[in-house]
């Protein structure tokens, strides 16, 4: 049973948006990555979005590309990502975890085996960037059958005619991509985000989280006005990067740098009463 609906519903009932934080599994190394993930809920993250590192992240900007490279260089694999989730679950049974990434590592791992192992590890949902509704047979329908949420991205190019197809097999929440572009690049026009969320909400009862280009507590507060969730990713992995030493290794300040940013984002999101 996915933890996502409960979390979004509880925060909505409390009159606030949910904070979704993205980090890449294994960045900058498996041990530090686990420490970061464990510290996220305490810092105010409501949902953890965990990147499955991939060599060719075509929809991501430089920040997440580099973070993927750091993780792979440190030996992270899809198996390692699932193990990280399983370890996290030993001490946290509440915080929803969504795995985000690209299809090839999952396809190579084997879809049935992946879904079984992900469930076993305590994963709640999946976001797979390069699987549009046209390819639902590949992973989306088997994931739903296995009891995992499949979270779809809706974008500014997803018009009203196409939205129903995009939403048809979406569950957990809808991830609205606030810009046409890659992660961490442009800053969205926040004045248009509320209208975009409202458009999607006309087609679905699911919560709508907004991401891409949300970098600061001010951005997060602006998005929280109109959305049910705020997704922050590139800013967090950039914080990891700038905390590393000259050899690219984690320092004593790495985990604290991330939690400090998350705390600021969480405060900003919670301050927006709805």
């Amino acid at each position, binding site marked *: 049973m996915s933890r996502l609906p409960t979390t979004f519903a509880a925060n909505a009932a409390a009159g606030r948006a949910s904070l979704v934080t993205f980090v890449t599994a294994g960045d900058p190394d498996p041990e530090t990555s686990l420490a970061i993930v464990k510290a996220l809920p305490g810092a105010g993250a409501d949902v953890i979005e965990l990147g499955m590192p*991939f*060599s*060719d*992240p*075509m*929809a991501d*900007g*430089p920040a997440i*590309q580099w973070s993927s*490279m750091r993780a*792979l260089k440190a030996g992270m*694999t*899809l*198996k390692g990502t699932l193990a990280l989730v399983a370890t996290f679950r030993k001490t946290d049974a509440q915080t929803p975890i969504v795995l985000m990434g*690209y*299809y*090839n*590592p*999952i*396809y*190579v*791992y084997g879809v049935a085996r992946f879904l079984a192992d992900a469930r076993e590890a305590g994963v709640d949902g999946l976001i797979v*960037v*390069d*699987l*549009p*509704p*046209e*390819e639902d047979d590949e992973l989306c329908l088997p994931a739903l059958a296995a009891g995992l949420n499949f979270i*779809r*991205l*809706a*974008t*500014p*190019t*997803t*018009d009203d005619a*196409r939205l129903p197809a*995009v939403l048809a097999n979406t569950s957990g929440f809808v991830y609205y*991509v606030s810009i*046409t*572009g*890659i992660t961490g*690049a*442009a800053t969205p026009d926040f004045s248009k985000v509320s209208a975009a969320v409202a458009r999607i909400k006309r087609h679905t009862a699911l919560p709508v989280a907004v991401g891409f280009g949300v970098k600061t507590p001010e951005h997060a507060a602006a998005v929280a006005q109109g959305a049910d969730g705020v997704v922050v990713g590139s800013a967090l992995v950039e914080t990891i990067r700038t905390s590393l030493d000259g050899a690219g290794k984690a320092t004593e300040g790495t985990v604290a740098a991330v939690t400090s940013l998350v705390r600021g984002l969480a405060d900003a999101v919670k301050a927006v009463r709805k």
Partner: protein
Amino acid sequence: MLHARPNERPNSFRTGPDENGRFGLFGGRFVAETLMPLILDLQKAYEAAKGDPAFQAEMASMLTHYVGRPSPLYFAERMTEHLREVAAASGLSGGAKIYFKRDELNHTGAHKVNNVLGQILLARRMGKKRIIAETGAGQHGVATATLCARYGLQCVVYMGAVDVERQKPNVFRMKMLGAEVVPVTSGSKTLKDAMNEALRDWVTNVAETFYCIGTVAGPHPYPAMVRDFQCVIGNETRAQMMEAEGRLPDSLVAAIGGGSNAIGLFHPFLDDPSVEIFGVEAAGHGLSSGLHAASLTGGRPGVLHGNRTYLLMDEDGQIQDAHSISAGLDYPGIGPEHAFLHDAGRVTYLSATDDEALAAFQLCAKLEGIIPALEPAHALAKVMELAPKKPRDHLMVMNLCGRGDKDIFTVAEHLGGM
């Protein structure tokens, strides 16, 4: 399409892809949602253009007067004689009659322009003003920059920083033609990273940008569309061979990176069972070295750049770098239709090493007075193996898909500065 009678070749090999862009297991549309509406638009626009006589007439006129088609089908007499001597030396009486399809004589020096012309005319029909492309060796980039100059369109070419360095003359050519060349510094800084970066550009600049893909890869409809534009090679070959010899060729040989020149030659012959077909991948330092670009021989099925196909990757599904002396073959994947033809057994896929390609490159220059690109030199390396074993009346066609001017410095370096 072949209309099969009961109990006789029940399937045509030429009907793919299906409505979902699949060639059997391969192909598809594995792209981000932002691009999906664009790809559906492109598919509609291409279907409409394909059936529009005005579009076809414009293509035909430009192919004749601008590209310089048809390219000759040339009887490579001295290569034929040489390989018959090789056969005789090993006690064989045969040696195939070898023809070169001279696509290196096209404007811009390779087959790439056939496809670019089609896509640029389509972009114009769709009202797109900005063209982006990825390039490895620079041949597709040069062809795209050329047609953009011809039609006054903005052109941005993504090229791995490593390739920018090793293909400087082509970078200069593109700039002369008015294109912006963007060196890509992410990942391995070669062709696959250039394609990633082009996709990132496309997802950002959706409204007026047309992505001109250089090979039979990417999401549907690209593999089918690029193939259709390249089929001019095989269609001409068919007619030219009928005129020269009064019958179809017995075998076809072509080099494969993504596989666009090969599918262009092969496709019109796929349903002629008498025609043997050989694709040649780049084996780099040898398949056992791990440093190669032979996706079919050394890879397995995966999903990258919008389609499912054979890929070079590690056990975790991370894409590995390809290695080849030829920058044009230096790609860790292959067009999905080749993956299908491989699994179906219709085409035999071989591979040639860097050294074999270098030997063929030199032999072609000396015997025929033609300096081939390193890409078709891989195909020629396998012609040199196959032809001596065939009878004298065997007609073998090799696609000489590019000229070697761009490669002379690379070759000189490998041969010790000759």
